[in-house]
Each structure stands twice: as structure tokens, then as C-alpha cells.
């Protein structure tokens, strides 16, 4: 059965019906806030415990790609908002057009994310047996590192190893100078586990959002959304903006907060 915006029996007015839909969507988004909130909590606690390793690791992300992706995602939120406006003002042809723009921007975000993940894979920054935080400073050619960038990274890793060794010494480890690198690698893996976990879950939300957008585009092309009926556009819009908000926090927390030390 196709919904077209008529009043259902359980509601007294169309406004009430609409408001219920918005309210329901927000209740779902709150469960999402708490869902991501747990990961942000894990990040905060681990960062508090291992500031050195998190700082060194965070500076290994590609700031330019992260910055560009932030711009792309914010732009996609704008196009999404415009599709809602088009529906509310019965511009039936503009609805799918703005939605297609949103889908293109969302796909661009995911594409750039793939490039970033591939880069981390090549740089031995995937947590596991082959993880090696020193890979790029030892093989600068393979990572395209040179000049000041390479010197900075070497210096940061050296300082990181020293900081971890000091920490080990304080805890009475019998061999503090030997464990510095092991500890740095161990704690950097925590960072990258959180990086992949958080950005991965965010990307999964984007993929689901892209699927929803496809459906909206398909229905929008049939001219289904107008001033009378646009609840799906509005609610999927709310979801899309929520995913944007998650990235608004992921970007500074993962990419930025140690740049001043670099």
C-alpha cells in the first residue's frame, strides 16, 4: 500500500501525524547518539591513558583527505536539506535532483575513505601482526615521505618511544629502554582499532544512508513527494544530518587534536 499523506485513524490531525513521525525518528536517533557515544567514551578514556601513542598515531592520518571529506559531507547535508525544502514547496522535479547530488557527495566521501583505508593498509597501520608504527619512517620511499615530513615523523616516533620507556621505568619494568617501541606499537594499535571502529561504523551508516537515498530518488522521480507528503524525505534527511554530526566530532578528535605538536 502506498502512503500519500492521508490522515490515519489513530491521529486527530495531519499535524499530529507528522509530529509523531518526527518524534519517532528522533527517538531512533537518540539510540544512535548513545550507540556512537560508547565509542566516543572508549576513545576518550584510552586517549586519556595513552596520550603519547594517540598523539603520534593521530598525526599519521592524512589531514588533507580528512579535511576534504569534511567539506564533502557538510555539502551533502546542505543538498539533503534542499531536497526537503523542494518537497515541502512541491518542487517535484527538484526533489530527486537534490537527492542525486546528495548521493554523489555521499559516495565521494566513501570513495575517499577507501583511499585512506588503503593508505593505512600500505603503511602497516592495520592493527594486528603486521602493525608497525615505524614502517613509514623506516621505508620513507614506500610511503612517499621525504624532507621535513620524514624528519618530523622520525622525531615524533623517537619522542613517543622515549615517553613510553619513561612510563615503563616508572612502573618498574626491568628493561625500560627495550620496551619503549613495543609499548608504543601496542598503544598505537588501540588508537587505530578505535579509528577503524569509529570511522567504519560511520561509513556503514553512510552506506545504509546511500541505500535509503536510492529508494528516495526512485520514489522522487515518480513525483511522490510534495507539500502534502514528504515524511520519508524529511526523516531520512534527519538520519543523514545525524551521520554528518558524528563526522563533525570524528574529524577533530581523530585527525586534529595533536597537530599542534607536529
Amino acid at each position: 500500500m502506498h502512503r500519500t499523506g492521508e490522515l490515519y485513524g489513530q491521529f486527530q490531525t495531519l499535524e499530529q501525524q507528522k509530529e509523531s513521525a518526527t518524534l519517532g525518528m528522533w527517538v531512533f536517533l537518540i539510540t544512535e547518539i548513545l550507540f556512537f557515544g560508547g565509542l566516543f567514551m572508549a576513545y576518550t578514556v584510552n586517549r586519556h591513558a595513552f596520550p603519547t601513542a594517540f598523539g603520534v598515531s593521530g598525526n599519521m592520518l592524512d589531514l588533507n583527505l580528512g579535511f576534504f571529506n569534511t567539506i564533502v559531507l557538510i555539502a551533502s547535508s546542505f543538498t539533503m536539506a534542499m531536497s526537503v525544502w523542494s518537497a515541502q514547496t512541491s518542487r517535484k522535479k527538484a526533489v530527486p535532483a537534490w537527492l542525486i547530488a546528495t548521493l554523489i557527495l555521499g559516495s565521494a566521501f566513501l570513495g575517499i575513505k577507501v583511499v585512506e583505508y588503503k593508505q593505512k593498509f600500505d603503511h602497516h597501520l592495520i592493527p594486528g601482526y603486521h602493525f608497525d608504527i615505524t614502517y613509514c619512517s623506516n621505508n620513507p620511499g614506500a610511503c612517499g615521505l621525504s624532507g621535513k615530513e620524514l624528519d618530523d615523523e622520525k622525531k615524533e616516533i623517537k619522542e613517543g618511544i622515549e615517553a613510553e620507556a619513561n612510563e615503563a621505568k616508572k612502573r618498574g619494568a626491568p628493561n625500560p629502554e627495550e620496551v619503549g617501541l613495543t609499548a608504543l606499537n601496542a598503544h598505537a594499535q588501540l588508537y587505530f582499532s578505535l579509528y577503524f571502529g569509529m570511522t567504519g561504523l560511520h561509513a556503514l551508516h553512510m552506506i545504509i544512508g546511500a541505500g535509503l537515498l536510492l529508494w528516495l530518488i526512485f520514489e522522487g522521480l515518480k513525483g511522490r513527494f510534495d507539500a502534502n507528503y514528504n515524511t520519508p524525505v524529511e526523516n531520512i534527511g534527519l538520519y543523514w544530518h545525524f551521520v554528518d554530526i558524528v563526522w563533525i566530532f570524528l574529524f577533530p578528535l581523530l585527525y586534529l587534536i595533536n597537530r599542534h605538536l607536529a
Partner: protein
Amino acid sequence: MSEHSEHIVSPKIYATILAALLVGTVVTVYAAKIDLGRWNIVLALTIAVTKMTLVILFFMHGKYSARRTKLIIASGFFWLAIMLVLTLADYTTRHAEPSRSQLCPVPALTAPASAAASV
């Protein structure tokens, strides 16, 4: 019983918010490169919270939604705050060493097998 719920936000406002979000993104990147010590994180999060507020109020129509919806939105952040505040109250007031080792014991930090055998 319900105030007229459909408030249409104009493209002009959307464009203004878009511009503000883009400016915020550029500012946060440049601010991150200046050494402000512990204030770097404070500034980064302040900008992020501001951007989030703009998205919720305008893109998500939070400013124009019914009071009941506003209450629901606020409650979500309230529950998030409970988790963050209570958890941090624990971790930031514990002695550093046990917190560190409980979170992630480093295998190499334990004495080598030979040393263990002699104990």
C-alpha cells in the same frame, strides 16, 4: 492541540548555515596547528559543538519543532552526558598507573621468562 508543525526553512538560511559550517571547518583546521597546549582540545570541541548545534537547529529543524520533540532531543544529550561525566569522574581521578595497566597490559613489560623462573 498542536501548533502548526510544518515550518519551511528557506534556502537562504540553509546556505548561511552551510557557509558557517564551512568556515568552522577551516577555522578548526588552522586552530589545530597553533600550539595552545591543553586548550587545543577545548577549542576543537567548542567548534564541533557549535557546528552540531547549527545542524540540529536549522538543517534538522530543531528550532522549529514541537516542544515535545525538543524535549526528546535534549534528553538524548542528557543521557550521553551522564555516561561521559560519570565515566570520566572515575578515570580522571584514579591513580595513573593502575588505570594504565588495567586498560592495556603490555606483554613485554612483564619480566622475561628467565627472571620469572629465578623468583
